């Protein structure tokens, strides 16, 4: 196979490391890494270029866990919930173990997702195309109820944060009529509030502000933990088999749906892992199953996003949209024609996907688990200014607008107070990210059904998701009641 020769192999490895570094730094994303490397592929063979970019994609998604675990600041939206359990583990000196579990989960997610990618790509892509506006709105509604059930001790606060996120998402251009709405005549709000800078503000800037509060602590993590514990124990692997399979399925299935992808898959998988657990109260306090769920599903979502991209030419997320640009500069269009006329290229992409996954695992396990804790375990006075500067400049580079920097700063300050008042930030971020899509799908769906809500309840696919949403909500209520009876705080 072409990718197994030295040059492609070296470029895949280089791309993976490049992606890991970008993923690990809050504010720099896999999308930015792919966009930066696209010009370097102009002069390359198309297979070589696209294989390197696939490596960047996998590295970028996987690298997000580093800062989520060691700093409590997710490097990418895909690692949004990894820090919920990873950071508490790192705080109690199990940073190396948490990283190891996350990296192993990344590999498992990639491999299981990859099997779906190869075996079911055309079939799954065709099934996903059955999803119209009504179905997509139902999926997003399910996502919202899932995120509410992660709201901790108060469901009311979760609902408020979700409504806050949805309200923020109404600012800017109306997704159907393309006119300004709720901008209060501020020109800077005309394009709406960008989700990624808001997320960086809520998770990175606010966490930095909280760390500034605790001036007596010199380090964010007092003990980085023994890197020798980084390999998952056999008992942990055995206990995680169900979680691995469930999270991979969730990741691949949600990853296929265009635009919904990585950030939601981690949350749904995390929620399902919590529900399946015999000790749900330990989630959010350092239960390794939370890391397993989040990291397995977000890497499986990479495979999910590649399925409609390769099989139908529909980008599943912003990275695959950038990858599409990478293919098009070589005169290639992904889709059924790619499978029939450029089968070797498709085979090389599949091979690069697996090679990059394995290299990501080897690099992060053998080098990353030693290097990252040392780099990130410098004193707060050095880490915080650097992280803040890189995050804010990363925000600017997303759209080259200074408004993005202000979005990050304002949401950072809001996020700081939210944490002080025990409000969950995840529903807010999900509301901002998925709000415009939910509105668009709901309104188009209602146009298609002449304003009737019945198809949401009678058509099999949307009805299934609405039922799942209801079940998820009532199950969360039930668990909360049980926990209150036992005097446990969720």
């Amino acid at each position: 196979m072409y990718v197994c020769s030295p040059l492609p192999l070296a470029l895949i490895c280089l791309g993976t490391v490049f992606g890991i570094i970008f993923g690990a730094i809050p504010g720099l994303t896999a999308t930015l890494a792919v966009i930066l490397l696209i010009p370097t592929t102009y002069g390359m063979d198309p297979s070589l270029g696209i294989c390197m970019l696939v490596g960047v994609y996998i590295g970028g998604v996987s690298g997000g866990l580093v800062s989520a675990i060691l700093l409590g600041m997710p490097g990418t939206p895909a690692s949004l919930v990894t820090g919920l359990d990873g950071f508490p583990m790192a705080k109690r000196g199990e940073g190396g173990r948490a990283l190891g579990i996350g990296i192993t989960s990344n590999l498992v997610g990639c491999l299981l997702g990859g099997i779906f990618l190869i075996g079911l790509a055309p079939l799954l892509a065709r099934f996903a195309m059955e999803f119209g506006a009504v179905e997509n709105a139902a999926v997003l509604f399910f996502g919202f109820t899932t995120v509410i059930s992660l709201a901790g001790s108060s469901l009311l606060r979760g609902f408020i944060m979700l409504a806050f996120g949805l309200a923020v998402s109404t600012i800017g251009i109306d997704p159907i009529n393309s006119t300004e709405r709720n901008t209060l005549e501020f020109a800077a709000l005309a394009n709406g509030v960008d989700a990624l800078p808001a997320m960086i503000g809520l998770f990175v800037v606010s966490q930095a502000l909280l760390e500034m509060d605790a001036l007596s602590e010199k380090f964010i993590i007092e003990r980085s933990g023994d890197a020798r514990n980084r390999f998952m124990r056999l008992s942990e692997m055995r206990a995680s088999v169900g979680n691995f399979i469930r999270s991979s399925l969730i990741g691949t299935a949600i990853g296929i749906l265009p635009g919904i992808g990585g950030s939601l898959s981690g949350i749904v998988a995390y929620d399902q892992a919590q529900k399946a657990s015999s000790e749900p109260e330990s989630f959010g306090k350092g239960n390794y199953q939370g890391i397993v769920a989040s990291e397995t599903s977000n890497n499986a979502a990479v495979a999910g996003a590649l399925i409609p991209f390769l099989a139908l030419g529909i980008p599943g997320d912003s990275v695959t949209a950038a990858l599409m640009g990478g293919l098009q500069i070589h005169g290639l269009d992904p889709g059924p024609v790619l499978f029939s006329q450029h089968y070797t290229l498709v085979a090389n992409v599949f091979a690069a996907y697996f090679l990059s996954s394995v290299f990501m695992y080897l690099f992060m396990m053998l080098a990353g688990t030693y290097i990252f804790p040392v780099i990130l375990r410098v004193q707060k006075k050095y880490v915080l200014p650097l992280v803040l500067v890189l995050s804010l400049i990363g925000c600017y580079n997303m759209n080259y607008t200074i408004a993005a920097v202000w979005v990050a700063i304002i949401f950072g300050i809001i996020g700081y107070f939210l944490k002080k008042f025990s409000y969950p930030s995840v529903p807010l971020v999900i509301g901002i990210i998925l709000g415009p899509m939910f509105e668009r799908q709901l309104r188009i769906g209602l146009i298609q059904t002449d304003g009737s809500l019945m198809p949401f309840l009678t058509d099999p696919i949307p009805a299934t998701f609405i039922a799942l949403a209801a079940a998820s909500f009532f199950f969360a209520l039930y668990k909360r009641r049980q926990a209150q009876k036992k005097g446990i705080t969720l």
Partner: protein
Amino acid sequence: MSENEKTGKGLPLAYGEAGLLALLLFLGGVCVYPSNLVTNFLVPEQLSSVAYSRIIGCALLGLCGVRAALALLAAKTDRAPGRTMTLTFALAGCGLIVLYGLIFSYIGFYIATGGFIFALSYYLEAKEDRSARKCIVFTVATIVVISGVFKLFKIYLPPALLF
């Protein structure tokens, strides 16, 4: 948590929370009374832009109203340790970041970043160990590394008055 917060001194969290909820109520109000009333003449919309915005706004108003009432009721009695916050830390940190944003936007990235890194690293150092010289060395080294990395990766900086 700062020492004051551990001992229950400072602003009760419930009052602070009421302030946050006031902001959310304002946003809810904006959604209920959207500035642009748009009618789509091409497709008869069953759920218009304004109606959607109003549904979200009403939900936010209702939920925040309930929470604000609960928070204010709790504020009268709740001054337990860990249920208060020291505003000075929050204002210092937030103020520094806002100032950085302003200088970054209007004067220049390198000047803003230099000042910000120096001020923050100096502020985060324990009072007895504070050394301006160490902070200056760290600031200069960081600026040099950052500018090198930005040049290498072609990361753009916003145009401002100075460099």
